[in-house]
């Protein structure tokens, strides 16, 4: 992963990890989300439209971010996964729990 773009939005914060979300880059995402939770953000939106590859550790990081967000009384939502990411979500059945939203607005609305 080259970068995680973080921007404030109405009703939450949007994180957009670009490139590969794997065992190597997962800690970066976990760190970024933890930072936003500490900063008081409740709704964390992870925009996956720029993430072209995710492995099981990457998905694991999404789940542990969801856990931290929930325990802080907030929520984590994922948006617009690319084809490979959608496939992995389906394969692991994780889409039954984390259903991707079509757009960022959609995700922020709740």
């Amino acid at each position: 992963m080259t970068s995680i773009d973080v921007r404030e939005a109405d009703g939450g914060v949007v994180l957009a990890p670009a490139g590969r979300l794997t065992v190597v880059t997962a800690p970066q995402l976990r760190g970024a989300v933890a930072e936003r939770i500490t900063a008081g953000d409740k709704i964390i939106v992870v925009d996956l439209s720029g993430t072209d590859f995710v492995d099981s550790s990457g998905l694991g990081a999404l789940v542990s971010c969801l856990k931290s967000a929930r325990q802080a009384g907030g929520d984590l939502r994922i948006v617009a996964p690319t084809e490979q990411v959608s496939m992995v979500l389906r394969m692991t059945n994780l889409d039954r729990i984390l259903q991707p939203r079509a757009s960022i607005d959609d995700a922020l609305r709740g």
Partner: protein
Amino acid sequence: MQATRRDLRTLEARTTRRRAATIRIVVVLAAASGLNYVVWRWLASVNWESWWIAVPLVLAETYSLIDSLLFGLGAWRIRERGEPPAPPGTGFTVDVFVTTFNEPVELVMRTARAALDISYPHTTWILDDGDRAEVRAAAATMGISVITRSSDWIDRPRHAKAGNLNNALLATEGEFVLVLDADQVPDPKILDRTLGYFKDPLIALVQTPQWFENVPTSDPLGSQAPLFYGPIQQSKDGWNSAFFCGSNAILRREALMQLGLSRYVTEVEQSVHRAIRTSRRLIARAREEAKGDRRVTLALRQASLIVEDARAELARGDGISDVTYRFQRGIDAISTQYADSDLAIMRDNLRELAAMSTDADAFAGIDDAALELLARRDTSPVAAIEAISLLAAALDVDRGGEAQAIMPMATISVTEDMATSMRLHGLGWRSVYHGEILASGLAPEDLETMLGQRLRWAQGTMQVFFRENPLLQRRLTIGQRLMYFGTMWSYFSGFPALVYVTAPVLCLSFGVIPVTAYSVDFFARFIPFLVLNQVLFWVVAAGRPTWRGAQYSLALFPVWIESVTSAFRNVFLGHPLGFRVTSKTKVENGRPRWDLVKPQLFIMGALVIALVVVGIRIAVGQAEGIAPYVNIIWTIYDLAVFSIIIRAVLYRGPAVTTKETP
């Protein structure tokens, strides 16, 4: 990882055709003779007059037949792989985990030092579950990092070694993980000899043998398991069910993480659906208990409305995360509302108190923000309504009771290894048993530690049997189910063992005969079964010693029985197992521990007395026919088996070798 043509050939390697054919012929003969004997026993030779011993005996014999059939079924596809595929070029990342809890620091560091010397590029970690300063200091001098539990584990179930590994898996990033127990000193070539198998992208696990260096050739405590870390694992390998044994194994991280994710999804779904299913009953009962308390009844009615919303949303196919989020906010709303009326009264009281007080500042500190705290879920009076807090905990996606949402290593058993590999196989991953000794460990050196260790392994296996019975795992092939079941089946041997020692005692001492016909009919069926079974063992073992294992599978019957009963109570009644970590150090107070083997000594005494009694009975002409002689041979065999217990009690540990560093 690119596989060359040569690699592909090696990945396909199997037992030679000649050996496989020999084994299969013997398997068929042994199975046929076994079925012939046991069916005859049931149909024609049970002495129903003494049914109370005759039926247990024929049941025990049936048990042994099934054991032998499962052994034969495995051997049918025995897979001896030989040379491994060439290791991949560099560029693959490997983490080496040395797991420890309370082993002596020198022991841990001895293994860690050897781990550093493994030739394939890797990162060495010590997973110190004891969080000891001495380990940290010693590791620092060698430049090794120590991983201890993160703060997430505070006040949550620790899950012993499985938890230790799960914690470390989230703290590291190697593509492959080599797991070593604290006493298992690895060979520098361990990764070069095993990583090549992962050129097959479906391989998730490569298990190598556990072999112990501190055991004399006579192996009085039966520590080496040449049959298990040999033909048995190789048999399972043939059915793609060679399983993880906790140490000396290499695992593919991607497979473990995928397993963790799939378990997370399954468990969250189960929890949510169970909560929805039982919610109506739960709320109805709570309403009854509220006995008309207006506020509780109101809160329960509101709760039941949001549960019904959640039920409808789930049925509609909404994501569980969204459904539970809306549900949790609904519960929050009830909490706030419930607390609000309390808060209003409190504010009024505070205002009045402030008005009466001469020091108005005393109450200024209690501002609205402080009072808002009371409206939070955990402090709100709603938390006291058990039905609501139960639902709130179950209808969530955070697995709040666990330290980590993702738990790759199975936590359903005190031995995490077997359950984990069974689940990996269920996901379609493959495993390899590579039968080359690539690490040398330290076995228990005294009877007590040895008994504790065997009990723990057996208990762990039985927990998996009761919690995730392999026969019922729809995602495993029939062969895999039977191979896992075979291992579990062998741990039930304590019950038939008890029958096998009781029956001859009854026959010799009291003339109770469980078999109607000790005649040609009997011998013509029994002897082929006995002989062919031995031949099968002998052919499959191919020169490995098997007698010690055979002795202990009978002689440790109290341990096997306890493992079954204690695991049953643990799984179904929630009783603790009485679990202890295997100590790797010697207990040196010297006295032989006869007290640990009282049941065995009692049995041996009874067997000896039975021999004396039958001698007298024969002398006075009271014992007739062939039955006493059959049972005399049987008794002598039992005594030979149990004699190992005496040797084990008297065993003083290995002679100190000069190899040990001064």
